[in-house]
């Protein structure tokens, strides 16, 4: 028996596998048993009802997809009245992702969402499709600090902060979020991208820019998780290109406490369940009793730094 549970601050997840915001809804209970997930993560909610971006909202690329949804939704009232109760039927903690244009509204929204059935507030300060420069507050250290501080002041719920892979210096931004009171860093949102159709010379997405989602990107996000893990004390959730149990292990070795999954669930609606099962089997095979042993366990302290010595080792 492997203990797959992990702790993120005060919250215990029965296992480190959860869906990524925007790639999930309670409606997936049609195909998988939601009670098996580490957490339930709702689609990012904004205050007002929003239609979202013009279609097409998705285009396939060489190795993945770009998408630009534009945070559609029925607004916070409908969310609290109709959607939170849907999630409340299930056991795993409910993470509610939130986005707003201004810091004030962000904080106010977080406060309004701090109802008993909501277990965690995830501040999505990194949606790349809300403007054309690669994201929101998470592109800047100071904006991140100010925004998280304002939210922190308005809610006592665990506060997770989703960062942007489009930022140049994610470590400083992560540190700013930690300083401002974040309980956990979610790394990362999608990569701002563009596809132009060569038949009609037009952008493939109705919104022109979109976020790239692809297993190919995992090594970039993994590097970010690794760098941030060395710089902060709060836990990290790694999101980007997880498609199999070994990817969960890899993120945990790099310093993540849990992972979020988007693409793999689109590709295989039952993927999250398989990944949880495989992770348990993987730990079992290796005699790993508690999955938490993997967190930050990368062996990076005795690397061979002499090129001549390294190049005389085996392949």
């Amino acid at each position: 028996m492997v203990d797959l549970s992990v702790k993120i601050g005060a919250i215990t997840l029965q296992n480190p596998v959860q869906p990524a915001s925007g790639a999930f809804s309670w409606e997936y209970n049609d195909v998988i048993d939601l009670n098996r997930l580490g957490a339930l993560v709702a689609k990012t909610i904004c205050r007002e009802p929003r239609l979202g971006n013009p279609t097409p909202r998705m285009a396939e690329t060489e190795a993945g997809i770009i998408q630009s949804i534009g945070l559609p939704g029925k607004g916070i009232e409908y969310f609290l009245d109709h959607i939170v109760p849907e999630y409340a039927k299930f056991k795993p903690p409910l993470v509610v992702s939130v986005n707003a244009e201004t810091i004030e509204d962000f904080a106010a929204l977080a406060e309004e969402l701090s109802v008993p059935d909501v277990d965690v507030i995830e501040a999505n300060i990194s949606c790349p499709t809300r403007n054309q420069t690669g994201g929101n507050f998470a592109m800047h250290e100071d904006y991140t600090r100010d925004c998280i501080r304002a939210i922190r002041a308005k809610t006592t719920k665990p506060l997770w902060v989703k960062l942007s892979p489009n930022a140049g210096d994610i470590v400083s931004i992560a540190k700013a979020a930690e300083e401002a009171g974040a309980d956990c860093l979610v790394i990362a949102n999608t990569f701002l991208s563009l596809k132009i159709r060569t038949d009609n010379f037009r952008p493939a997405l109705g919104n022109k820019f979109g976020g790239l989602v692809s297993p190919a990107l995992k090594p970039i996000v993994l590097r970010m998780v690794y760098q941030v893990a060395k710089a902060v004390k709060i836990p990290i959730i790694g999101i980007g290109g997880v498609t199999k149990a070994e990817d969960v292990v890899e993120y945990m070795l790099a310093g993540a406490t849990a992972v979020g999954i988007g693409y793999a669930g689109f590709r295989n609606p039952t993927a999250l369940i398989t990944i949880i099962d495989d992770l348990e089997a993987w730990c079992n095979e290796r005699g790993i009793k508690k999955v938490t042993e993997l967190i930050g366990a990368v062996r990076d302290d005795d690397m061979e730094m002499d090129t001549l010595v390294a190049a005389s080792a085996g392949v």
Partner: protein
Amino acid sequence: MSFEPSDKYTDSALRIGDTDPYPQRLVGEFIGTVVSNDWVNPEYKHLILKVHPHALKAYAGQMFHLLCPSPDGAEVWMRRPMSVYRVDRTEGQVEFLYKTEGRGTRGMAKLGPGDDFNIAGPLGHGFKLEPGWKNIVVLGRGVGLATLAPLSQLAAEHGVGVTAILSARNPDVVMSKELFEELGAKTITVVDTDNSSAVENVETILEDLIAKGKADAFFTCGSNRLLKLMQRLGEKHHVPGQVAMEQIMVCGFGACYVCMRTFKVDGKLTLKRVCRDGPVFNMQEAVGW
């Protein structure tokens, strides 16, 4: 020696004969076995897939989300939605009729007997026959006929009469005629080559069917022109109708909001998810495309 992690994407998909660890599921991810995958004309193929019994719950207008194999060595990254063309409960098979278009369907066209094929579904709301409807009119063109075809099965099961108007470029590429007729439907073929497929002619046919009491409801898919026609006549003669819509999809479960289409509900334009609010919608609400 390097340890090579399991390099195939994981799946808990159900194969024929598997016992389901989550039997209350409404939707499954299935790995079926291809029975046949033959050309029905130069553009369309007909795939028959043996599947786990849970997949046989599918009914007319519902869809599966297909994990198409690669046509060329590079991966196909997203599933492709496809209406169920026929469900054969005795043989334990679901069938698809599809047009080879881009990479997904070209990859699908490569499947041969015995191959695995991963499908998720059944998804969405399909066609519904209201009690009291005795005769319905089905009007489709091209790939839309693949979506409409299982209506013949549904109608037969409910003892409802069907007139199917099949529109095509030329008589050689008319599809689903046999399937409709086999199940007792009356078919009318209209083609571009003799201009019988012109809206005016189809309108005459429809007016005639309405007059004869053969049109308690309208069903269409695949042509905006024909949708508009049915909407107009349906409004005029108070014939209710259903239309199956298409849109590019990601999740198929209603979660991602990629598959939006515009609808007019109570006089107001709004967006709906084709995958979950549809793919079959109230015909009068559809804005068309």
